[in-house]
């Protein structure tokens, strides 16, 4: 569904990613893990069109999307839930969601979508006309995911969904992601830790220093020390 070929990206003047190639299949949940500063967020931002690759290409459902504007990538059905959630704090929850459904309608979405999504996130319905800035971190994460879902994505990119959230709240977020997986939504989830890979992921890719250090199907990993080695760069 998504293919990265020899991708290299600069962040500012500094190379953040060199030569990343990867393949993600439809209907799978894919983890990208790696230490701080490894280039994971840069990778997602590049896929989503917010950064331009210096070299290489990205193709999504057979179509080259590298070099496209972020709004066009979104219209292609690839939606990003960014690091730090980035809800529009001055807008109400309703308005935040409407922004998502604007793009969704271009792809044949309807108001029924909003209902469907809200049934996944009951807390958002409760606070429908409240400003998003008043939500707690976990609620904002839900809003950010809900908003992305309303764009009717084929592929959901999620950047550190557990960042800054208490463990129990993170459990809640992953509960929702699991439901989405059951609806066979393709996802790429970036996390700093690999704690949730085994129970939630189909594949795992370790990114370190801007390159792929390890990549495997979760089901075929028998010994995690290999992954650990790749993560740290030494054993």
């Amino acid at each position: 569904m998504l293919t990265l070929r020899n991708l290299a990206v600069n962040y500012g003047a500094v190379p953040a990613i060199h030569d990343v190639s990867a393949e993600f299949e439809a209907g799978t949940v894919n983890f990208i893990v790696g230490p701080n500063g490894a280039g994971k967020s840069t990778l997602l931002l590049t896929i989503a069109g917010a950064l331009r690759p210096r070299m290489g290409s990205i193709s999504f459902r057979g179509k080259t999307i590298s070099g496209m504007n972020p709004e066009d990538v979104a219209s292609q059905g690839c939606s990003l839930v960014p690091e730090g959630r980035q809800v529009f704090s001055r807008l109400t929850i309703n308005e935040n969601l409407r922004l998502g459904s604007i793009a969704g309608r271009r792809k044949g979405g309807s108001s029924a979508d909003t209902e469907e999504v809200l049934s996944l996130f009951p807390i958002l319905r409760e606070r429908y006309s409240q400003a998003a800035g008043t939500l707690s971190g976990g609620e904002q994460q839900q809003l950010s995911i809900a908003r992305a879902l309303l764009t009717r994505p084929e592929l959901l990119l999620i950047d550190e969904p557990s960042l800054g959230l208490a463990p129990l709240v993170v459990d809640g977020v992953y509960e929702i992601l699991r439901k989405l997986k059951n609806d066979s939504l393709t996802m790429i989830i970036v996390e700093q830790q690999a704690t949730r890979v085994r129970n939630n992921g189909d594949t795992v890719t370790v990114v370190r220093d801007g390159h792929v250090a390890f990549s495997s199907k979760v089901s075929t990993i028998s010994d995690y020390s290999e992954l650990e080695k790749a993560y740290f760069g030494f054993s």
Partner: protein
Amino acid sequence: MSYFLQSIVDGASLGSIYALIALAIGFVFGILRLINFTQSDYITYCAYALIIPSTAAMPALFIGAWPAALMVISVLLIGVVLALLTERFAFRAIRDAEPEILLISSFATSYLLQHILMAVYSTRPKSVSIGNWLGEPVAFAGLRVPLIQLVTLGVTGAALIALVAMLRYTEFGIKIRAAAENYRMARLLGVRANAVIAGCFAISGLIGGAVSLLLVAQTGSLDILMGVSPVIIAFFATVIGGMGSLMGAVLGGFLVGMVSQLLQAYLPGEAREFRDAFLFAFTILVLIARPNGLIASSAIGQRT
């Protein structure tokens, strides 16, 4: 007392003009981090479109001689077209540059437009009379207020309400507010940058046209620099109100207009001439007291 009320009406009328311009500046600044100096040229060009190109001090009317409705529509349209042209040719290419570069580019572009106008019309201030009847004073609640002040209040009030309603309830308005808060995130959700930005410039041009008509009707004169000072003041109004908060811009505009008129009314005669100096000093002091603007600090999490 009635002197005070009179000043209040004057202040509200001036303030509403500043509020309108501040809103235009605020739209563009919120999204592009660009202080759009060319806003002053939208005002000036629209005003000069009323007369035939000429260097004379009392030129013949051009669009100004058309029937009122046609005149208003044409002037507004000129504002919109000019704003869209500046967006397309001056700002689109440098959209991602640093704020300092944007600021100075916008200053340079404005200077360029000013001097193109100057080459055609010369620097000589001109007098024009459109809507002379608007200068007639009307008795109003015991006050004698020039009709133009009431018209200004009415027009700007209506425009502000329309803009606020648009911002709050329409899809386009939500997109603008979202982009003003977090431009990249809005794009990631599929909001089309060019469309939203062009829309903001179009509104800025519309506001420029409306303001120019009101200013010309009030003063009866044209000046190459007529737009500069209001735009600078309106920029301060947006800063005072809180950057990124469009309601703040409106509030700041009213406040600055009001203070300006009250200074005019209550400064001792000698000092009155220095009103603008006091006004600028006042705005800078407000910024020192509230660096994030009047409502920004409390506005996190509130509706704008």
